[in-house]
């Protein structure tokens, strides 16, 4: 009895320690090792191949950048961003001081507060792009989910719009862009515009290209609700809205989210192209400007952008996956 309680209290006290050592001990360590090892090998092999192959490719702007140059440019771009931010802070303090001086001399004087006029850095461009892609994606979702529900619920409506969806779905963003630009220029006329025209153009292009997967998946999810559950809804005489809210929508949430993830991926891809062509601020413009610059470092800087675009796209998908796990009942 005493030994029993003794060992018991011992294990109580040391449980956390054991839990910790368990994680670091043989089996688990080997497991995590295996999980990390193969991806690490893949990345190292890729970097090696890149390092060897890049200098073989000669372009008019010099050799294709290898990993080392790209890394160097990443640091440089970060440094530029840092410097720019310092200058911006300086600008703001100088402006404040100046305004204070003016106000001290003449309290009625009108002071002007200006934004820092420096060029946006690479990091700024990333955030601009994220803002644009989210705006376009949210707009696409607001359109696609309700429309998808209507299509999924109504067979006649579905038959009527299906050919349109099939035709518009494969259209490249580059084809939409000139049209969107012209329409935005013609319709969005305001003395004090809330948004830049270029922002609207790329956002609408993103919306037009990315709403299709959500639309199609939502309609498929809605039309594929388990017939038994539809019968339950009929037996309960649920009203149309309750039926949609309590049966149709929850039932199709997994499908809708699958669509949303594909849509977000497409939105991000389309955005870069749209920004390049529309000359709206963002990563696409950064790439295009570097290309037009044609400096010796341009290719490395573009490569940095390529990697950043890929990494951000990956992160966006992960975030969607996390939201899906929170929201969907089958996860």
């Amino acid at each position, binding site marked *: 009895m005493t030994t029993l309680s003794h060992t018991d209290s011992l294990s109580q006290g040391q449980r956390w320690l054991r839990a910790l050592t368990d994680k670091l001990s043989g089996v688990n360590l080997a497991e995590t090792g295996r999980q990390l090892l193969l991806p690490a090998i893949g990345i190292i092999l890729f970097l090696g191949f890149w390092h060897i192959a890049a200098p073989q490719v000669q372009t008019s702007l010099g050799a294709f950048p290898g990993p080392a140059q790209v890394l160097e440019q990443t640091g440089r771009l970060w440094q530029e961003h840092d410097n720019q931010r310092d200058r911006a802070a300086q600008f703001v303090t100088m402006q404040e001081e100046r305004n204070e001086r003016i106000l001290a001399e003449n309290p009625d004087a009108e002071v002007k507060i200006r934004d820092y006029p420096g060029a946006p850095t690479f990091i700024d461009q990333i955030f601009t792009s994220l803002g644009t892609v989210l705006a376009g994606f949210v707009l696409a979702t607001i359109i696609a989910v309700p429309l998808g529900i209507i299509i999924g619920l109504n067979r006649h409506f579905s038959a009527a719009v299906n050919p349109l969806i099939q035709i518009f779905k494969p259209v490249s963003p580059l084809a939409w862009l000139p049209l969107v630009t012209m329409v935005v220029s013609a319709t969005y006329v305001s003395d004090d515009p809330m948004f830049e025209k270029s922002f609207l153009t790329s956002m609408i292009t993103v919306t037009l290209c990315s709403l299709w997967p959500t639309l199609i998946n939502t309609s498929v999810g809605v039309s594929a609700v388990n017939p038994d559950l539809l*019968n339950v809804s*009929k*037996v309960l005489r649920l009203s149309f809205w309750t039926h949609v809210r309590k049966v149709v929508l929850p039932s199709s949430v997994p499908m809708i989210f699958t669509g949303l993830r594909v849509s977000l991926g497409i939105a991000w891809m389309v955005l870069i192209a749209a920004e390049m062509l529309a000359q709206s601020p963002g990563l696409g413009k950064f790439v295009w400007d570097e290309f037009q610059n044609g400096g010796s470092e341009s290719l490395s800087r573009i490569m940095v952008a390529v990697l950043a675009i890929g990494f951000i796209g990956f992160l966006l998908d992960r975030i969607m996956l996390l939201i899906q796990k929170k929201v969907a009942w089958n996860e």
Partner: protein
Amino acid sequence: MSKSHLELTNVQMAFDTKEGPFIALENIDLKIRKGEFVSLIGHSGCGKSTVLNIVAGLLQATRGGCVLDGHEVNTPGPERAVVFQNHSLMPWLTVYENVELAVQQVFRKSMSKAERKEWILHNLKLVNMDHALDKRPGEISGGMAQRVGIARALAMKPSVLLMDEPFGALDALTRAHLQDSLMKIQQDLNSTVIMITHDVDEAVLLSDRIVMMTNGPAATIGEELYIELPRPRNRVTLADHPEYVRYRQAVLSFLYEKQRFPGKGEDEQEEPTAEAEAPAQGDNLPDVGNESEESPVRRIA
């Protein structure tokens, strides 16, 4: 026998197929009094589910009709609650919320919030599922989910409870357990029940009357057998009760001598094929395909 509570008169059901109309049911006449427990038995694909779906209002008879308490049935409604074969609980709702959805809908006006809550818990207690209120259907066993399905149906206070092979997908032990629960609940509430089954023992044990259907196409009611065993019934003591054995033999003889499975030899009956009308019946028959999971032949062997 008192005035009939539920009445099917001269029901015919035809489905449109590519080869022209397919007559599934013909001349179904059935009168059921209040509190009666009726089992529908017959071979796979004979249209038992179609009969049930007509009573439920999920299908419209092409001729004749169904009258419940003097009102013709032509739409589904909670006074004819259905227990489906595969529980049909909303997988994203918890056990409690599944029953709540039904109670909310049926008693939104007539019960206060507290009364509704109590009523939900009462029904879940009735089927012994009050210990898993916050579990999702995916987290409980098939038998438990089926109990919740029954609780949901009972919570609608239906005047007729329709059960489409409620225990068909369960293992034998769980099934026996649920049969006993159902028997007790039905006796306490004196509810009218129509149940589809493949299981001869289940039919004899639970029913006041067994309605045996002929093989399709144009299936109709072949024989009716009144089970006059005293209640409460106990499966163990009944097992070699001479009356029980006689009733069972009557059903078996109907199924395997008078209505041999279409196009089959006697020793390979009840294969899950010959679902001739299945494609034509569309979405309203959730059970087609699984109908022959439990073979009565095996059960008496």
